[in-house]
């Protein structure tokens, strides 16, 4: 069963970023969306969520309604100057469930605290947001997404600016939540290691090379495919049962420049 599907979809802000694409988020799957900086990953995600109007093709909702989405934005996009406690932020996740005109009840507060406990930061519920570390802040955003009782958990670059150990811990947490709540997951990232070992399906995206490919993770995490995506030599090796991916020398003329080019084209 698909939760949401793009069929021959043309995505972009004014002009198409990619050739027409087909992409489905299946129930229970973890879809990793991989691509270098400025590849069009955010545009793809917005199109999938229905936030960006398609320039062509269609977005299909096989259940007859959009999936309930728990969304974890990039951490650096949130303003920490707001006088909010951790619980205030997690309670925001209940907004859609509550509907308009209703205030959060004790049950909503209870569910929000449960989400925080599950993420391992139950003791931070009454702390002000600004007093949190980066990793704690990221966990609060995941707790808010879980408090929304989602069918689909969407994480936009959740491990950027994290050290490898913290990245691993966070991905294991997402994996645990996926099984505990029977979730489908979409993980958008430019970090290869975040996808290897966690994603069941992988989409490779690069608007500059006009690349869009999607398939089972084992098939997509192929040195040749990844090499084409990044314009560099890529090695995929098995280390003690875990997949490690390394990127080497540039193979395409624009490889070094692409590695440094940051930022998506937005509007």
């Amino acid at each position, binding site marked *: 069963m698909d939760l949401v599907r793009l069929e021959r979809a043309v995505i972009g802000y004014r002009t198409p970023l990619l050739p027409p694409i087909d992409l489905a988020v299946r129930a229970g799957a973890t879809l990793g969306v991989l691509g270098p900086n400025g590849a069009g990953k955010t545009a793809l995600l917005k199109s999938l969520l229905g936030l960006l109007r398609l320039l062509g093709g269609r977005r299909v909702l096989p259940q007859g309604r959009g999936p309930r*989405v728990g969304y974890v934005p990039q951490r650096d996009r*949130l*303003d920490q100057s707001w*006088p909010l406690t951790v619980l205030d932020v997690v309670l*925001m996740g209940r*907004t859609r469930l509550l509907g308009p005109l209703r*205030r959060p009840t004790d049950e909503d507060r209870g569910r929000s605290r449960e989400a925080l406990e599950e993420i391992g930061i139950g003791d931070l519920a009454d702390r002000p947001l600004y007093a949190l570390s980066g990793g704690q802040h990221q966990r609060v955003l995941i707790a808010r997404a879980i408090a929304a009782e989602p069918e689909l958990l969407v994480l936009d670059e959740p491990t950027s600016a994290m050290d490898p150990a913290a990245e691993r811990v966070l991905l294991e947490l997402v994996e645990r939540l996926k099984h505990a709540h029977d979730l489908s997951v979409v993980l958008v990232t430019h970090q290869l290691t975040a996808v290897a070992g966690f994603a069941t399906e992988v989409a490779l995206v690069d608007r500059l090379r006009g690349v869009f490919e999607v398939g089972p993770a084992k098939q997509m995490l192929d040195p040749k495919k990844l090499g084409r995506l990044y314009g560099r030599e890529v090695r995929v090796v098995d280390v003690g049962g875990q997949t490690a991916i390394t990127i080497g020398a540039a193979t395409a003329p624009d490889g070094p420049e692409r590695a440094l080019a940051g930022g998506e084209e937005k509007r």
Partner: protein
Amino acid sequence: MSAFSDFWAGRELWQEPLLAGVLAGALLSYLGVFVVLKRMVFVSAALSEISGVGVAFAFYVASIFGIDPHQHRGVPVLLEPTWFSLLFACLAGVVFSLRPGHRKLAPETIVGIGYIAASALVLAILNSPRIAQEAHAVGDILFGNAVTVPRSLIAALLAVGVAALVIHALFFKELLFASYDPETALVQGVGVLRYELVLNLITAVVISVATRAVGALPVFAFTVIPAAAALMVTEQIRRTIALSVVIGIVAAAVGYYVSWVKTLPTGASMVIVASLFLVPGLLRLLRRGTV
């Protein structure tokens, strides 16, 4: 006779303007928490100025038809400066909600352009030969004087205040979510544009009415200073709002009293008193070594 006795003896004169100041202070300092946190403080100055264009425009149109808008009974409803003021402010509120902007023009730049254009239009209209002789009176209507406030304006302030509070009470969680994290709110099905529009329209209407009651300077100050002062010393949104409203009310009341006993301009006195509430927050920052 002590200063306070003198002040008390004149209560017939100050009851209404003081009430208008306190109402404006309370309302604006409440909305100001959202205005400051959304980093759109200049919007209040622009809305105030743009609602002024509405008033000036009403006078100009009336002068074309040979009508004196001061003679309220003889003015057709459609030429009432109040309606023009509200219309212009609401249109600006809608435009600002659409987050107009360009790769090189941030929304703040658009707000700034609105402010500058509105200021120029007010000056141009007030100095046009058709209404130049009424410019002073029009100025009072445009920007208030906080000394004499008609009861109708107090009633209008009360009405928009009640409307604003009811809307905020009903949709507080949506307004908070949509203001704090619009991207996630949108993904989770909250109508961000709708709530942004509601917030901006409420702000536009309150600013439009309050500007005529107490003047442009105190309106801008009440929208920024109490919220900023409260934010520096509180860490919970509800406490921030409560403290901001208390500061707004106290600044309006004490500012009015000071202006009476020291014979100072009322709006300026309110602003100076409000500014004193920034001191505890600044001292706190100094103690923490973050200044």
